[in-house]
């Protein structure tokens, strides 16, 4: 799980163009959408793309996405549960 969380942080930084963040800056339990990273609905769509392309995990509705993407940890848990 830890390795997945670590990899996810790097992938999120790249997919979402969070260039001024390092993996150390992201706390895996912090809310992604309510933090100062300022992620929005477009970022949620990009995370859906990331999950599908890197992990083969499909999310059908973007509304479900917004719940699953609460934090890096919840994303990792969803991946583990669905791969």
């Amino acid at each position, binding site marked *: 799980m830890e390795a997945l969380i670590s990899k996810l942080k790097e992938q999120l930084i790249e997919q979402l163009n969070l260039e001024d963040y390092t993996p150390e800056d992201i706390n895996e339990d912090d809310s992604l959408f309510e933090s100062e990273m300022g992620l*929005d*609905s*477009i970022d949620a*769509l990009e995370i859906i*793309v990331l999950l599908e392309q890197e992990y083969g995990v499909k999310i059908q*509705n*973007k509304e479900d996405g917004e719940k699953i993407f609460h934090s890096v940890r919840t994303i990792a848990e969803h991946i583990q549960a669905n791969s």
Partner: protein
Amino acid sequence: MSHISIIADNIISPLGWSTEENFNQLYLGRSGLDNHYDDTLALDHVSSIISDEAIQIRISDLVIKQSYTRLEQLVICSISEACKEDIIDLTSSDTIFVFATTKGNISLLDPSQNEDILRERRFLNVMAEVISRRYRNPNRPIVISNACISGLVGIITAKRLIEAEAYKNVIVVGFDEVSSFTLSGFSALHALSSEPCKPFDITRKGINLGDAVGTVILSKEKKGIPIDLVGGAITNDANHISGPSRTGEGMYRAIDLTMDGITAKDIDFISTHGTATMYNDEMESKALHDHRLSDTPANSMKGFWGHTLGAAGVIESIITYQSILKNKLILSPGFTTQGTENKLNIITASREEKIECTLKTASGFGGCNAALAFKSK
């Protein structure tokens, strides 16, 4: 202000090649939306697409010698139809073209489409120059590319140009076509509905796309239909680049600035932007509610033509003021059950009604909003 006249107009869509044909089809509730398949994307989609065979028949009538893209052919058909009574001198320096489009000839990005000589036409100004030169107009055309409000901005700009006495006649042409490019993009945004769209409905799932061209000619020197253009404003939410502000404040202000000298009670009909996305319809209904316009008969025309992007503001405006001339309210297709927190009076069946003043709204990516009102003279 009151000496600006609308002297001609034209709409081309799958529902017809003239304003009259389109208005009649809309009144009867006919839609141009149909099932289609995009080979490039391997995507089934519901869109409103003009048949290529019909275009070829019309083109041969116009004796077009030079090579034009499909979209340019449609634009030329529309301008020629609007101008056919030699209604104005297109070669005069007092006349100018204002073009409005979001993507223009974007289908040219596909190297297998069209010949090399047309590739330069992916630049919107080149496309605009080619068309205005065809009519031997001496002025550099104005090209507006401002997302989905482009068409309405085109009409507002034309009004302002005539009020400022910069020109006597302005031909506004709004256009866009369905393409793999736009289908792909809206699909990636989860904004494309897999069925006919349902503006303001509780089960709405997003937009459909559509081909269309709309032409309106505004003039200071000729007398036209007894309609005045009132107000006209463009604003920005300054909130998000692809979603409207939840408060609807930008749209609220655009409507506010347009309702100069008009109260909510004066407005008989609202032609909304109503794209059928969760966000747009929610925002727009809030802005209208805050203006006490919730009881005013309203529709969205996106269920007839799909979202025609650059053409939308023009073709929907034409139908909006034609509704005043004909005293007919057109239904809002796809609507069954109220689906926004602020409920609107959505027209569910076309009917005759005395209409003297109408409001047209639009909003687009980039946080922009626009509004314009039309009144019986």
